[in-house]
């Protein structure tokens, strides 16, 4: 029986395994160094905040794997010997495979800051990171202040986590607005204010120069590049993005770039070895998408596709319209299609921005000025129906049409106040004043 081995028990590897099982009777093994069972990385923050326990982050009950004949192996793959189709674990144990799927995920970025490897300096990616955080920042007495470096999605989650234990947080963000390499200025500004309302010491346009050690090799303070200011702290969170976790593949013969190079079929340069999820790098970016996509659902989709290929129905990874979501403290964010940041948007892209007076809801709609077509929408504090917006993008509707029909895409709970009229009004006014 053909043996499919998957390294990585994250969403991409597990989805691949599930779909291979649906389509075939092949022997399947999933290997992970991190945890015995698949858990949701996206829920790490909720464990620290006490919303959930580790058990609750497991999407499948433990009996699921045996029932579906998916073998689980805990261990760290040290080397891949693709000529003999064999894996070697730390400790020397080996395992052979017929087909190998690399779903090894990411690791937090470190940009060579002095002091980045000190104790109490950490990222937030793995379950072990969470355990470490529990040691470094159990409460506000042990951790009198935390400094977070890097204003992205994980940085703001870490800020929220720490603030639930009343730990004062200084949040260093290189850009001049939170995440405004991605968010348009209006959206980013609202989130800046929301972060500050949560008593986070948000420092925009601020870089880290170095992390200073104490006598025991622990971080005791950070130094700000621009001002030279020294901020004492007991924890430094490095959350300046993630990159593919491919160090152990350096000498494997598998072609690497920023990630593991794959074609549209998710095949690497070596036969019978595939890469999916965070660690895969497309040779050609697909549409406006990045060549390395480190989000949950792309990992899931790649798993779905590679399962087809492995089960004899060779298929390209062909994602539909871009979408994503996040939550910034209390404000939910959803995006569909492409809304570029103010600085990076192409010439033909114009933005309509509406913000509610309570400063917790806003939307930005991107339009192609050459033909009035709708390019994408950012929604904060308002939920939108994926299916409808996806259809509008496929139908290449105009922004006028989208504004007129926005009500039909609302996904807020029943009885919520609705803002379509106010949005329509603002949209019309914009043309009258211009």
């Amino acid at each position, binding site marked *: 029986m053909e043996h499919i081995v998957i390294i990585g028990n994250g969403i991409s590897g597990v989805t691949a395994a599930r779909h291979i099982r649906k389509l075939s009777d092949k022997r399947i093994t999933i290997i992970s*160094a991190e945890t015995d069972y698949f858990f949701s990385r996206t829920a790490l923050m909720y464990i*620290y905040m006490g919303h959930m326990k580790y058990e*609750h982050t497991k999407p499948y009950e433990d009996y699921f794997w045996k029932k579906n004949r998916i073998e689980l192996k805990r261990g760290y793959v040290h080397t891949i010997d693709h000529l003999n189709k064999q894996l070697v674990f730390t400790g020397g144990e080996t395992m052979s495979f017929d087909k190998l799927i690399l779903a090894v995920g990411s690791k937090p970025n470190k940009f060579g800051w002095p002091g980045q490897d000190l104790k109490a300096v950490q990222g937030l990616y793995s379950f072990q990171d969470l355990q470490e955080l529990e040691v470094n920042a*159990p409460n506000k007495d042990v951790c009198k202040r935390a400094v977070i470096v890097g204003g992205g999605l994980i940085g703001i989650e870490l800020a929220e986590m720490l603030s*639930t234990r009343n730990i004062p947080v200084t949040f260093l963000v290189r850009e001049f607005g939170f995440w405004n390499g991605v968010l348009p200025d209006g959206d980013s500004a609202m989130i800046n204010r929301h972060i500050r309302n949560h008593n986070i010491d948000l420092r925009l346009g601020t870089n880290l120069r170095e992390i200073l050690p104490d006598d025991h090799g622990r971080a005791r303070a950070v130094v700000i590049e621009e001002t030279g200011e020294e901020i004492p702290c007991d924890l430094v969170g490095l959350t300046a993005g993630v990159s593919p976790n491919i160090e152990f593949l350096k000498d494997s013969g598998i072609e690497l770039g920023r990630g593991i190079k794959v074609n549209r079929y998710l095949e690497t340069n070596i036969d019978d070895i595939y890469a999916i999820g965070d660690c895969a790098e497309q040779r050609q970016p697909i549409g406006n998408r990045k060549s390395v996509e480190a989000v949950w659902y792309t990992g899931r989709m790649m798993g779905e596709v590679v399962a087809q290929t492995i089960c004899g129905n060779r298929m390209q990874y062909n*994602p539909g319209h871009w979408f994503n979501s996040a939550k910034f403290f209390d404000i939910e964010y959803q995006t569909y299609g492409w809304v570029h940041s103010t600085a990076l948007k192409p010439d033909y892209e114009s933005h309509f921005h509406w913000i509610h007076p309570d400063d917790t809801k806003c939307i930005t709609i991107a339009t192609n000025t050459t033909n009035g077509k709708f390019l994408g929408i950012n929604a904060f504090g308002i*939920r939108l129906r994926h*299916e409808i917006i996806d259809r509008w993008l496929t139908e290449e509707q105009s922004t006028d049409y989208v504004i007129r029909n926005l009500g039909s895409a609302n996904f807020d709970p029943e009885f919520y106040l609705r803002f379509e009229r106010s949005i329509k009004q603002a949209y019309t006014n914009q043309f009258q004043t211009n």
Partner: protein
Amino acid sequence: MDTIQRNMSLTGEPPKALNVLQKLGTLIGMFGLTIILMAGFNIDFPNKALWLTIALGSILSGVVLFSLGAYRNKIAGIKNDGVWFKSISNRGYLAWLMGIALTLFYIVLYFYPAYLGLNENGANTGIIALFDPLSMFLSGNPASEWFVYGTLYTIAIFAFGIKFIWKYRNNRHEKIRTVSVMFFQLSFAFLIPEFMARLNSETFSLPYYDLKNIWPLNYYNFEQYRVDSFISAGDIGLALLIFGVVSIFVITPILTYKYGKRWYCSWVCGCGGLAETAGDPFRHLSDKRMVAWKIERWVVHSVLVFVVVMTTAVIHSYLGDDATKYWLTRDVFLISVAVFLTVLFAAIWIFKREQLKKDARYGAIGYLTIILLLTALHFSSGKTLFLFEAETLRSTYGFLIGAIFSGVIGTGFYPIFGSRVWCRYGCPMAAILGLQQRLFSRFRITTNGGQCISCGNCSTYCEMGIDVRAYAQKGENIVRASCVGCGICSAVCPRGVLKLENGPLEGRIDSNEILLGNDPNLLQLINRN
């Protein structure tokens, strides 16, 4: 990271200390409770009306102050920080203490009301006496243990309802729903029956009737003494009796078809009301495992069968045999029940069979056969209907289900099993509504395309133990018999994935193997298979 760590325990040390307002609230609330407890130890308060007002007022304002302290200075949003770290909400010491105290209270209430001050002959003493002034004021009668219970129950729904509204003040759906629950408890369950009692006189007497309590939740509604007293109360009584029948056979199916069982379980019902308000801090304790779901299905439907059998036997026992006196004789009644059940079963079997799980099919066939066999046996050999005396069935049901399950376990064990144990495993009304919701209703929880990140907030906070995530991450709508439509899964979802809504039956359960967002061809390919 090339080391393997086996230790999965994270302890978590959130800020535990209560703030000043919360301490004050606790103190004031405890003061109110202490007054009542002291009355229990037969301390005779001189001015009962005044002390009762102080006691109830303290409890109410204590809870309100506590919630003010908890949520006042926080920005509106989800407030589940530290839920799994706190002793009271994580089955810790405090939780067990509270569980035991509540359980004891229920045992005393149901079985030893004398300790509350109920005296067979003679005036009330103790706690019940403390409540006399309020009862006199409302209905003109002295209090009973049930009046005490009803008052405390209403205060609990009110006080914790206010807390709930503060906690979920970002969520208009939850606020409106809670106001509804508070309204129905105060008016329908508490005040109206007391006022109705005022109408009673020597010649006119209505039984105590909480109009929103529908059979089989109020399993006693069609017992002889009640039916007699309805009938003897003339037009009003008859109207109430007819309302009782219509509410289960007409009103309930229509509303459940339009809105799902939530119209009752989360908007009207008193048991649901307590679970949603006072029980809210314990909602995450429900068991989410597949085996719990299996047990739930068997237990709750068995209770339903039990209540049908029991009620049939009871009504049968007091009907006459002489068709010339009254058209509804024992035989007519029994045959109608058998025909009704058979037709209902046949309809489900013919139109909805493929929607039933395997064990549900076996269960349904099994139970129907037993009921029909026993009925046939009764007709052919004259054996006691359903083998036991109607009275035995009635008292067993009242004891096991009415008292032990719904009270002692259902509420007493809030801090251990979660807030909806009764609603999930025990309530026959929920079983009926659930069957209909699953098979014939416009209600569903819609999943928002491919946005789910499998975080598990929804499943964790579902008080009915539904693994919401299992559906959401597959892009499948949630159509479950047990869902009471509380809306909390939708509230806590950080990605806006879930929406409770009513819509056409067509496409209500979309089961997509591949979610929105992926290659349209792949979508088609897989979903066709």
